[in-house]
Each structure stands twice: as C-alpha cells, then as structure tokens.
C-alpha cells in the first residue's frame, strides 16, 4: 500500500446558495483545491464524488458527471459514493484507495450538496426515509432530528446529561462558526437561546439542530512519489481510515446511548494509523445534532462513555482544552450539506494541520495529528479518517 497525501483543499462558502446550481457550487471547491495543489484538472485520474440528493434535492441525476464536465475533469474515472451524511468521507476513502493501490497518482475527493431547491417538509421527508423506510418511516414518520432525539432521551435518562449540556455544544460551535467566514451560521448564541428555541423533536430544539445548507468541498490527493516530484511543501498524510456500519432499524440496536458504528470505525482507524485518542491535536466530529457531538466524544474515545457532558461543561473541547473539536463551527454552525460534509471536515483539518486557519480558531499543534469522525444516517454508516502532517 502506497502512502497518500492531501496536496490541495478547497471549500465553497456554505449557506443558502440559491445563486448557483450543483455544478457551479462544485466549481467553487474544485478550482481552489486544484490551485492549492498547483495541479490542473487534467492531472486528476480519478474523482470520487460524495452527494446524496441527486435527482431529488436537485434535478441532476449524475452529479459526478455534470460536475466533472463543468470543472474540466471529464476523462477521469468517476464514481459517486453514497454513505448518507458520511458520503464525503466515503468518497475520500475511495479516492485514497485509488492512489494507495497504485491505480492513480493524483485523485480528487469532491463533496457537494444542494439542499435548498426543494421545500423543507419534503427535505424532512427524504431524510426521514434514510434508515428503514418500511419499518420506521412508512407508518411512523420519523424525522432525522427525531432519530437523534431517541438517542438524546436515552443518554439523558442513563447519564444525567441535561438539555443545558446539549445547548453548550451549540454555543461552542456557533462561537467558532462566527470566526469562520465559510460558515453558514455566523451568529453567536447563548444557552438560553437554545433552550428557548422551538421544539423540533423532543428533547431537541431548533438550535440543537444543524441548518439546511448548500455547500461543496474538494481535496486533491497524491501518492508519495508524486508529492516528491511536485515538491509539495506541506503534504498532509492520510494515516489511517476506519469504517463500520450499524443496523438499518434502530429497533435492532443494542442501546441508545452511543453509536456502535462510531466505536468500531474509531477503533479500526486508530489501529490502522497506530495513533491513540490522546495523540490527536484537533478533531472534527459529527454534530448534526448537539447530542451527536456528546456521543461522539465518548464513542471516538476522547472520554469514557457517559462523560461527554462533563467534557463540554469543562470546556475541554475548546481551544486550550484537552481536545479542541469542531473549530470550523461544525455541522451545527458551518452547516451540513449532506454529501459535502466529510470532505469539508477534511478540508478544515488540512488547514488546521497546515496552521492556515484564522488565528483565533487555530488549534495548537503538538503531534500534528487530526481526526475526522463522520457519521452517515443515525449511526448507519461511520467513517473515521486520521491525518498527520
């Protein structure tokens, strides 16, 4: 297996992007990623695209094809990867593998999603179907916040996690979002704002939920030989990738206080990268809802099961704490364009490892190790990617 590095990264402005179609939005990530890599579109031999809304949230049915045409990538091997909200990480894994096997020297992972071309109830309908349509949506109308709310209720009952604890996650992520010019939500909020926001699915309220966001992110990957040949200054190496899955039906899960797929994928990522949770300088974890971030702390191994709330209460996941998390604002404030999120997490970590982010949200680097934890669905998929400069 060959070593693989990220040599270029680009990220569009996240938000309500009704000014651009899916191809134009992708271009806003692809162009800066190629420029960052000092490569051209023609250098890309393989491109894996993460997107889930094709044909439904936006009209184009073959997003890999139309974005490739728009960005000059036609000719390259193409595939669209779907792992629900972890599609971007799955695309990254696929592009990574194409290089690691020696089949390509330069590849791209592109995540792109348009979520605001249809109305919100229809979006809720689509996302609610992501699990077991037949047994958990058809008769019961579960929504995405509701699936996570089931976890929140159980976590609160078992460990005494409170609605205030959940709110603290939103407050932290909005704080960092306000420092990130790419973020969808850039307003700072208080615990009171969260607690007084409308209930979406008890116990989760509006400000416990990520917004509905359009966005794109792209990464250019290269083999070690290519990194040397191109004399890349600051390659960011892929140290290891872990993956796992959980049952479609939540009723088939063992418990509701954590995601088994996260635990398993994290273990595999740490094993393959020979890195421990303590070595990580900065992490992105999947905070589609506030409870998701608390569970991620525990499932990835930044604390013991049940101690996630303590971590956020003590400020250990802010800059200066034990492990700074979601310094780009996270899904909660940066936004969560489903298929783009995995690539955007890795974009952020690449910039963090290169110490190129806005100064007030730059994590201090000791080992130059970063971790991205990306969940698809409600623990249906999980991909964990470990990077090292």
């Amino acid at each position, binding site marked *: 297996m060959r070593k693989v590095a990220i040599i270029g990264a680009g990220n569009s402005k996240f938000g*309500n992007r*009704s*000014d651009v179609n899916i191809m134009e939005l992708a271009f806003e990530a692809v162009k800066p990623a190629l420029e960052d890599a000092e490569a051209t579109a023609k250098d890309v031999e393989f491109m894996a695209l993460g997107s889930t809304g094709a044909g439904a949230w936006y*009209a184009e049915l073959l997003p890999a094809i139309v974005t490739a045409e728009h960005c000059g990538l036609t000719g390259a091997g193409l595939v669209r990867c779907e792992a629900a909200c972890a599609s971007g990480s799955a695309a990254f894994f696929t592009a990574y593998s194409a290089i690691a096997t020696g089949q390509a020297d330069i590849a791209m992972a592109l995540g792109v999603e348009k979520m605001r*071309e249809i*109305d919100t*109830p*229809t979006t*809720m*309908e689509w996302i*609610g179907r992501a699990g*077991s349509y*037949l*047994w*958990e949506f058809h*008769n*019961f*109308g*579960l*929504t995405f*916040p*509701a699936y996570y*709310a*089931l*976890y*929140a*209720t*159980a976590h609160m*009952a*078992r460990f005494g996690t409170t609605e205030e604890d959940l709110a603290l996650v939103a407050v932290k992520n909005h704080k960092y979002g306000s420092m990130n010019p790419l973020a969808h939500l850039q307003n700072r909020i208080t615990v009171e704002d969260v607690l007084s926001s*409308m*209930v*979406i*699915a*008890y*116990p*989760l309220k509006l400000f416990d939920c990520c917004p509905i966001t359009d966005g794109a992110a792209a990464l250019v990957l290269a083999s070690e030989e290519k990194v040397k040949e191109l004399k890349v200054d600051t390659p960011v190496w892929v140290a290891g990738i872990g993956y796992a899955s959980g049952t479609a*039906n*939540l*009723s*088939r*899960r063992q*418990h*509701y206080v954590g995601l088994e797929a996260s635990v398993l994928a994290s273990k595999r990522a740490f094993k393959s990268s020979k890195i421990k949770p303590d070595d990580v300088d900065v992490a992105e974890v999947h905070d589609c809802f506030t409870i998701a971030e608390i569970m991620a702390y525990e499932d990835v191994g930044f604390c013991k099961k049940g101690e996630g709330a303590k971590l956020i209460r003590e400020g250990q996941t802010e800059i200066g704490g034990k492990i700074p998390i979601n310094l780009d604002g996270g899904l909660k404030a940066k936004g969560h364009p489903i298929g783009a999120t995995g690539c955007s997490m890795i974009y952020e970590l690449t910039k963090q490892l290169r110490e190129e982010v806005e100064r007030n949200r730059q994590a201090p680097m000791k080992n130059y190790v970063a971790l991205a934890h990306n969940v698809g669905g409600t623990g249906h998929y999980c991909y964990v990617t470990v990077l090292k400069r």
Partner: protein
Amino acid sequence: MTYMPSLRSREIKIAPQTPISKISPFWEGLKEGKVLATKCRKCGKLYFPPTPDCPECLSSEMEWVQLSCEAEIETFTHVVVRPASFQHHKPYTVAIGKLKEGVKVLAWLTGFKLSEIKVGMKVKLAAKTTPEGELTYEFVPP
C-alpha cells in the same frame, strides 16, 4: 433576501409499490389484532421487524410467532416538525420498547401526556387499524 432566478424542474411523483409477499402474514396478523415476529427454525433467533431470511445463519426457514405485547420503554421522542407526508397529523410520540421476548419495536406511543412518559415505563404493544383503514401497531397504556 434578493430574488434569485431559477428554473423549476419537471415534477416527478413517486410512490413505489414495495412487495410484501414474503412477510404478508405480518399484515394478516395485524388484521386479527396480533403483532407477529419471525423465528429462525435453524438457529432459533427471533426477529422484529419480521424477516423471511435469517441474518444470523442465512437460513430462510422461518416460523411466525405472536409477540406477548408486554413492553418497557427504552427511549422516546415527540415529533413536532413533521415530514411532508405527515403534515396532516398532529405532533406524535415515537418510542422504542423492549418486549419481554427480547426483541424491540419502534412505534407510536399514544394515551399519555408527554410529561408522563419515562424511560423504563411499562406499556402495551397493540395492533391497530387507522381510521383510513391502514394497518399499524402502537404502544398504549398497559
């Protein structure tokens, strides 16, 4: 927000017909007021939702068994913001209950005020036919 020009795509309506031949006894059971699960004749594992194929041993020799309906709530939520096809419903409560046979069921929970519902609470699982004639099942007070 400024007006952004857009092109409305041609509308598609979708409503696939999911085959239920292999699990039709489940719906027959609901009609008779029973909630059924499947049990693998080879390895003995019990499944809800029912399945015609055993994920554990890949056998397709299954038998249908009626569930006891005595359940304990493991978790719940109350869905206020609803998807497009549930817009005509009032907000609803969804719970996951563990039956004494060991399997779990996800379904609506009715007959309680939200403030009364607690994790660990005993409830009853009941087959139901909706006013619109659709077959379903729900948790209700024991």
